């Protein structure tokens, strides 16, 4: 632990990262309509106002449906791709994986707009379903990345042993491989859920008039008097995503421990 200057710098950097987020609870409990110093005193009325808004609950309901479906479908598609890429050699594997991972390196706006153009041309009505289609496309690369590292840490001799002992490939997958990559599956589900919940551009352009959580928040920004209630909502969301992340991190570490690896990294 040398380099005191670097240490001070890193702590200052973390303060910069967290400073805006610290403002959320500060102003969520502040008894004033404007977000400004000095603070005016403690209140929980912003939470009550937020809680009473029926539009918010509609948005939450839609978001819950979307994010859950996206988490399940992306993880399923991720399982196929990750298993294929770690287990088999086949021609044009790089190109196929490249296309699947492409959304990671394309500006989101371009992916959303090209989907929108095609959906409009085909006459597909915009709805929750079209948001799910878009989000699955965005989340699948994350699922593939997480699951690939889960499959890579598998010891192939376990699978060979099961086959030698008379199991079919399918029952081997079910009995041996799936339980071993389960921590990876859970962290993929949680991360895809979180990404989908937070995603705005696709939800905004592909959703038609269906409100979801992110478009609801964006809409509220237009009304200055609604801002403190959004601060309250933001406080709750931050607490929720920290909880989800802590759970995902716990499963990721358990997966690494199961496979006997050493842990030095974080997500991605």
């Amino acid at each position, binding site marked *: 632990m040398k380099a005191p200057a670097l240490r001070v710098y890193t702590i200052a950097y973390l303060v910069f990262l967290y400073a805006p987020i610290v403002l959320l609870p500060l102003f969520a409990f502040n008894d004033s309509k404007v977000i400004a110093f000095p603070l005016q005193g403690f209140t929980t009325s912003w939470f009550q106002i937020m809680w009473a808004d029926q539009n918010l609950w509609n948005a939450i309901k839609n978001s819950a449906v979307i994010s859950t479906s996206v988490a399940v479908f992306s993880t399923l598609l991720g399982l196929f791709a990750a298993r294929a890429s770690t287990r088999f050699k086949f021609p044009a594997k790089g190109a196929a994986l490249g296309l699947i991972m492409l959304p990671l390196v394309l500006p989101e706006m*371009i992916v959303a707009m090209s989907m929108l153009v095609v959906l409009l041309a085909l006459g597909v009505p915009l709805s929750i379903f079209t948001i799910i289609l878009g989000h699955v496309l965005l989340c699948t690369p994350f699922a593939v990345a997480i699951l690939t590292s889960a499959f890579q840490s598998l010891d192939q001799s376990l699978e060979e042993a099961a086959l030698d002992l008379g199991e079919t490939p399918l029952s081997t997958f079910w009995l041996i491989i799936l339980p071993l990559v389960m921590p990876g599956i859970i962290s993929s589900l949680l991360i895809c859920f979180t990404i989908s919940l937070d995603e705005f551009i696709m939800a905004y352009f592909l959703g038609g008039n269906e409100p979801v959580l992110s478009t609801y928040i964006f809409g509220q920004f237009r009304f200055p008097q609604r801002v403190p209630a959004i601060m309250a909502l933001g406080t709750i969301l931050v607490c929720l995503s920290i909880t989800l992340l802590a759970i995902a991190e716990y499963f990721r570490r358990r997966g690494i421990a199961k496979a006997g690896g050493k842990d030095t990294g974080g997500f991605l």
Partner: protein
Amino acid sequence: MAQEQAAVTGRSEAASGWLLISPTFLYSVLLLAAPLVAVLVYALTLKDVGGFSFANFHEVWTKPIYQKLMGRSLTVSFSVTLVTVALAYPVAYFVSFHVHPSKKSLWLFLITIPFWTSYLIRVFLWKVILGYNGVVNSGLMSLGLIDAPLQAINYNVQAMILTLAHAYAPFAILPIFVSLEKIDRSLLEAGQDLGESRWMTFLRVTLPLSMPGVIAAVLIVFIPTVGDYVTPDLIGGGKLPMIANMIEVTMLKQNDRHMGSAIAVTAMLVVAVVSLIFLMLNKRFLRGTK
């Protein structure tokens, strides 16, 4: 093992691999590749009259309004990339070289948490912080440091750069950290044993070896910021549109899919060319230091 599996299922390894990846691959073909091709077709045909033409591209590449917007997008995202990567490097270096291995994941966890909280709310918080009646102005005024709100901190390109640099900070730290972790520590000892100072060892060994991580960080920050839609809208107050806002206006408000597609394809080309330049710089850099 492969033969064994083939014996059980009666399929070749290549066929099994393709069969397994096909659901995911087909999904990407239908929902990503096909729409991208459609956009390219729109961009290469004329509105109303139809027919193949480069006229849309000619307009996008020569009209001052598009050049100005593209220039602003690139200026903002280059600045954001520079600021983010330069500020992130010392943090990644600290976590990789000066933090005990058992505590590294805790530090990375702390760094990544802000990234997983709502992007919209984080951007909006900067508007609240920098706004005319915002946190900074009201804070300074209640402390008696200024008498009137500062005008210079809101609704400008600098505020957009600050907001985006904050939003993408963790993205830059992680790849640099990974490349620093891969460096063989005995190389550094060798450098110092051979009489280099610590600073020279850093410049001649550590920095070149961590270059792949720096380039990855540059691309990870640069690509999404070029196409950012929310920050120009909220922080720029809609008065400083970037390319994504232009695509929206052209595609949806003016209902011109052909021109909108031409702008989108142009943006993609620019991103691809800039990315390739960075990747080539990386290759040359690595070869030059061998």
